């Protein structure tokens, strides 16, 4: 089962010190979750990939998410069996090794491998630290600690793009985003070393569902490959779509079949009997996809059309990212006040959809009009989008956790993160392929003028640049409108399925 929080640790250990150190490692890894979105262009150039082949950047993003998803479901069980801190230290070392491969990559394949290992190491830290926090504190005092750990992870991922943009724009360059991880990770492991060697940690027998985890990972890997449009001029999906997509479906089918029969499943399929659980899982995945679209395409739009550098792109994205934690706090308070998960979740998704619709109307002059004081209309639109995406987090999470049994809350919480990441992975893969395909379709007959070959080159080039920018805008308008529609579907699902439940119906 995902992330079981079991027997308490001895109270003799220095709990704040342990939690601070492991929390610092978790923060470090979460910073890197979306750090690349503001560093993609220089990363591509470093591995000799041209900017007009952006499809080759897709695995840099999907690789991390896939690694994260592959390891996260079994990491809780691994920490049961081998000890929380040992698993934490091993995974932090894996994360640091992934960082080394990424920073030193001479080729795209090493860069993607590095990101995959970073994801695998970083993804395992979440359940390991949550389980450690649950061990260290008794059930009555546990909630604020677990909340703080989750908040640390969220804040890290929110700050990641800004951190990435600032380092990339500095004289150090993008590789230092990853080089810096190595000494910090080493310092954390060094500080934890006495605890790792003490053998004080309790090890428990854990039934790890390796088969389930392998089937789910294989399914996701095939799906990611199927949706990865390697040649967007010809097709929005991968060249092997026709055999990879059915294989992914078969893997997921066998996974569900196996999970229903195995005594220690990765996911309790009975949860899905409750429509509130299924609805919140789907809503969470759609919101994750929406967030990923914003994370990737706002910096790229800033760079390609508004000619911003990495730090400028990051600062533009921060306006949206700021709205997320504020929305998350507000969503929790509103849901509690109104005693309704469905209304607040649906409201959040509708606001996010409205935000995406506004963004889809952006043109070259959209960053200029002022709203109030120094704030522009664009600032407001970005903040609204983030606020909407934040608003849905608390009610959707609470609805899902209410639908699982008390003893399975840890597993339910991990499933929430898994579904969000699945949404990010699948949503981004789909959008990247279709977006680029649309761009190539729109520019299929747009021949660039060449200096020396065209008599009136300057004028023709200005006209050509205008046309290309228009095609990029058209691509983004399509992507943002499609995302808005998906979010509205999510709002409808939330409105139709979510409800506050006193206790699980089937318990």
């Amino acid at each position: 089962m995902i992330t079981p929080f079991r027997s308490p640790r001895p109270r003799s250990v220095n709990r704040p010190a342990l939690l601070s150190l492991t929390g610092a490692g978790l923060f470090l890894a979460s910073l890197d979750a979306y750090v690349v979105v503001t560093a993609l262009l220089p990363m591509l150039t470093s591995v000799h990939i041209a900017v007009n082949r952006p499809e080759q950047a897709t695995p840099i993003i999907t690789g991390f998410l896939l690694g994260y998803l592959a390891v996260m479901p079994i990491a809780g069980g691994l920490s049961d069996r081998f000890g929380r801190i040992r698993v934490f230290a091993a995974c932090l070392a894996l994360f640091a090794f992934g960082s080394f491969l990424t920073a030193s990559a001479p080729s795209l394949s090493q860069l993607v491998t590095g990101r995959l290992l970073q994801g695998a190491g970083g993804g395992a830290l979440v359940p390991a630290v949550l389980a450690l926090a649950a061990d260290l504190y008794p059930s009555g005092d546990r909630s604020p600690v677990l909340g703080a750990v989750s908040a640390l992870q969220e804040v890290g991922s929110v700050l990641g793009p800004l951190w990435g943009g600032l380092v990339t724009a500095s004289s150090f360059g993008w590789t230092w985003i990853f080089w810096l991880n190595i000494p910090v990770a080493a310092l954390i492991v060094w500080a934890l070393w006495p605890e790792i060697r003490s053998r004080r940690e309790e090890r428990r027998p854990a039934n790890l569902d390796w088969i389930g985890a392998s089937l789910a990972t294989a399914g996701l890997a095939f799906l990611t490959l199927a949706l990865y449009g390697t040649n967007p001029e010809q097709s929005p999906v991968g060249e092997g779509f026709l055999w990879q997509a059915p294989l992914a479906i078969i893997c997921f089918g066998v996974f569900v079949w196996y999970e229903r029969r195995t005594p220690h499943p990765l996911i309790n399929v009975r949860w899905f009997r409750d429509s509130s659980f299924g609805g919140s899982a789907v809503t969470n995945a759609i919101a994750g996809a929406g967030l990923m679209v914003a994370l990737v395409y706002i910096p790229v739009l800033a760079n390609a059309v508004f000619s911003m550098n990495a730090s400028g792109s990051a600062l533009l994205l921060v306006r949206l990212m700021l709205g997320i934690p504020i929305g998350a706090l507000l969503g929790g308070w509103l849901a509690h006040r109104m005693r309704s998960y469905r209304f607040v979740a649906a409201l959040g998704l509708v606001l996010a959809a409205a935000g995406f619709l506004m963004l889809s109307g952006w043109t070259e002059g959209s960053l200029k009009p002022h709203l109030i004081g120094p704030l522009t209309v664009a600032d407001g639109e970005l903040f609204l989008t983030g606020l909407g995406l934040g608003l849905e987090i608390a009610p959707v999470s609470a609805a899902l956790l209410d639908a699982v049994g008390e003893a399975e809350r840890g597993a339910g919480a991990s499933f929430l993160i898994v579904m969000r990441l699945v949404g990010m992975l699948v949503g981004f893969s789909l959008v990247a392929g279709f977006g680029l395909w649309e761009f190539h379709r729109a520019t299929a007959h747009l021949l660039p003028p060449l200096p020396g070959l065209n008599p009136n080159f300057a004028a023709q080039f200005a006209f050509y640049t205008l046309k290309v920018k228009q095609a990029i805008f058209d691509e983004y308008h399509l992507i943002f409108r499609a995302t808005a529609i998906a979010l509205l579907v999510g709002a409808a699902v939330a409105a139709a399925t979510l409800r506050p439940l006193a206790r699980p119906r089937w318990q």
Partner: protein
Amino acid sequence: MRAGSPPRILAAGLALAIGVSACGPQPPDGATLVKQSSQRMLALKGFHFQMQITGFTGPDELVQSAQGDAHPPDLHAKVNLKQGAILLEVEVIFKADSVYLKSFTGGWQQLTAAQVAQYFDARLLFDPQAGLFAAMRDTTAPSRGNSEKVDGHDAHTVDGMLQGTRVHQLLPLIREQGAYHATYWIESPSNNLWRARVSGNLFDASQAATIVFDFTSHDHPVSVTPPPLG
């Protein structure tokens, strides 16, 4: 044990036998290897190539890398051009006397040889008279070095010098002055050239740069067809 006793003589004899059999036939000297490899590469029905320029190239040298298939003079390649801090990819086809270019957007457009010479005449790289394989023959002081693995193949390294005037013919922005260090990785007895490296102050009198060519699919037939225009 006494020196020269039967077991020691036996062991020495065995070691000698193993040593001789492990060495096998000696490969030709550097000059012969380079000459034979040049002939071999000029006679191929086709090959895949990859070219990478690193180091200081100056503001005028736009080409950063190229890769594709060639049966000289026909060639189909993807070329990465430097544009400030970023790279842009274009695709070129050289077929008979026609040159075709596929740029950042749109389809293929046809250029004349004179027009394409302003940017990057990839045909020059493997031209039978001016190209790399012909230049190999003009390598001065070639000396054979150790055997190294390149792309899974055992190849002998041959070090030598190439005159600037000769290397300038490959890429017109390379300086004609002086001489550059050239290294070839040649498989024996097939004489396949797997890698060639030219290094020195190629584009600037005081700053170094390196061009590395990698070759695979030796003698695999390459047929380049003109693309549809528009």
